[in-house]
């Protein structure tokens, strides 16, 4: 493919995305009321594109059994079948329908990533803010404990834990969440440390505020922006963690379809210029970009900048 064709295709994709995003925004604005409507009207096209993609993914995830032409695990044709009317995206290395696996993959992957990231943020943020607000020995003890855990490389840590506890989806979620929570803790604490020395926190303390109220009412709102930015990235790191673990022979139990493992299963094809592994990788990338576009929009609103 020539460079010109490539550029034309990219321009087409961008234009198509923008058009879809514009329509989606118009639809949202028409359907909403009040403050929500005002903020949606001001939303940039990228954010709308992001919301559109997320909505599509959620729809696909929820309706997977209705949308998928074949079963998640059914071997329906020869391996590496080309794209055709029967098998829109061809088949994988076992002859399972690629499109169906991608659709079921949305359900499994997004579900697992969401659960893991939410868990990691609940634990990490709470502990991080708590440590920064209370300070003293608690901060010291928590930070040292997290230092110890973080100083063990995450892949090695996960390898050890998963080998000890086995690889069910639950342990996978817990282990990756535990690894991620330490990273979230550090960011949350670092951000909050800059906040707790501010005068308004002093004032709140003098008012007698403390504990949970101080953390969630005073510190958290002001620490939200970097944490939201972190959330957008952590979310996609879960796919990558699963993918890297499957590189080491751990990861999700087959025949469950998840994008991280699907990239790994088909990855060798890419060195021959075959695009099959691009499909699950592209699905991950699109979702990551979409989530972070929305995050950027919220970040921008939270910063209070008016431009």
């Amino acid at each position: 493919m020539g460079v010109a064709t490539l550029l034309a295709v990219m321009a087409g994709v961008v234009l198509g995305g923008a058009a879809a995003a514009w329509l989606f925004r118009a639809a949202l604005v028409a359907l909403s009321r009040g403050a929500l409507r005002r903020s949606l009207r001001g939303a940039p096209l990228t954010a709308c594109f992001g919301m559109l993609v997320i909505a599509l993914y959620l729809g696909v995830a929820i309706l997977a059994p209705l949308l998928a032409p074949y079963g998640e695990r059914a071997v329906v044709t020869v391996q590496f079948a080309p794209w055709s009317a029967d098998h829109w995206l061809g088949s994988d290395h076992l002859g399972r329908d690629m499109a169906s696996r991608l659709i079921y993959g949305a359900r499994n992957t997004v579900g697992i990533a969401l659960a893991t990231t939410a868990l990691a943020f609940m634990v990490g943020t709470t502990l991080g803010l708590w440590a920064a607000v209370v300070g003293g020995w608690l901060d010291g003890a928590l930070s040292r404990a997290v230092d110890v855990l973080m100083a063990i490389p995450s892949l090695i840590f996960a390898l050890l834990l998963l080998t000890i506890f086995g690889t069910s989806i639950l342990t996978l979620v817990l282990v990756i969440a535990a690894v991620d929570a330490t990273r979230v803790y550090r960011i949350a604490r670092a951000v909050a440390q800059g906040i707790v020395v501010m005068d308004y926190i002093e004032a709140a303390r003098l008012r007698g505020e403390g504990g949970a109220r101080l953390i969630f009412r005073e510190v958290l709102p002001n620490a939200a922006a970097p944490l939201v930015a972190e959330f957008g990235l952590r979310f996609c790191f879960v796919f990558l963690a699963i993918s890297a673990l499957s590189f080491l022979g751990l990861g999700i139990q087959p025949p469950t379809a998840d994008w991280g493992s699907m990239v790994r299963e088909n990855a060798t094809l890419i060195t021959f210029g075959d695009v099959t592994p691009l499909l699950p990788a592209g699905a991950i990338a699109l979702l990551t970009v979409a989530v972070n576009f929305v995050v950027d929009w919220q970040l921008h609103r939270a910063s209070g900048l008016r431009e």
Partner: protein
Amino acid sequence: MRQIAVMVGQRLALGLLTLLAISILIFGATELLPGDFAEAVLGQSATPETVAAIRRQLGLDQPFWVRYWAWLSGALQGDFGASLANPDRRVADMIGVRFGNTLFLAGYAAAMAVPLALGLGILAALWRNSVFDRGVNAGALTAISFPEFFVAYVLILWLGQSGWFPTMARVPAGVEMSERLWRTFLPALTLTLVVTAHMMRMTRAAIINLLASPYIEMARLKGVSPLGVITRHALPNAIAPIANVVAINMAYLITGVVVVEVVFVYPGLGQLIVDSVSRRDIAVVQAVALIFAAAYVLLNLAADVVSTLSNPRLLHPR
């Protein structure tokens, strides 16, 4: 500055405690792993007798604390013991060259990634919401959402198979620096692509987070140029989170690159520790884990020093 010195001193002492805690944790975790060195090394050909013979010879039949104590007393005297797999090879010798390789690759990738990430982050903050901002963001996010091995394979397809760069990043002893840089370019580029997005986005977010502050408004009203506002007024106050995220990514470059090492056949520490874990070769696991931990502790200390210096309020707690 005295506070800084005291802080560094305290943190280094704490760092040693961290290392001690890690050594117990790793030793214990390796102990909890099903199977031991004798079973792992024999694999499918293990028989009860040979397993027992190996355990006896290597002292693996001793209780946990006895073995840990033997290891610790050796380590305190600077002797990390011998590999279980190769009793003739001291762990220190096994690790030496690989540690150098790991540091080299991490340094190479960081030298490309950090300036790139900071530069792009500042420009994205400056031209926020522009096409440039969106484009850089989308590009960085796309790069980061591909698994490392996938990025590596794509680079091999484009840059390796055409013969521009070698796909095996072996570095024979005594090659020249330029040759070395050329041979390890693909793994370094892979790692750059993997870590840049995270740092770039944090830079952008941290700066934008400050732009609504009154003092920035003040500077802007004084007529400082937009670039000046960001570099002279916003950036200094955004250093703490940036330094933190840079430290995390530098630590990752040292400790987390086993997948890239495997794909490019690069002899670094990551492959060594994974092999050693699966062989339950505890002396090697311990030594590498401690190196990783020390790298992590030092990088974080550096980040905290930079953060403290950048925020006088942290320097003079009330």
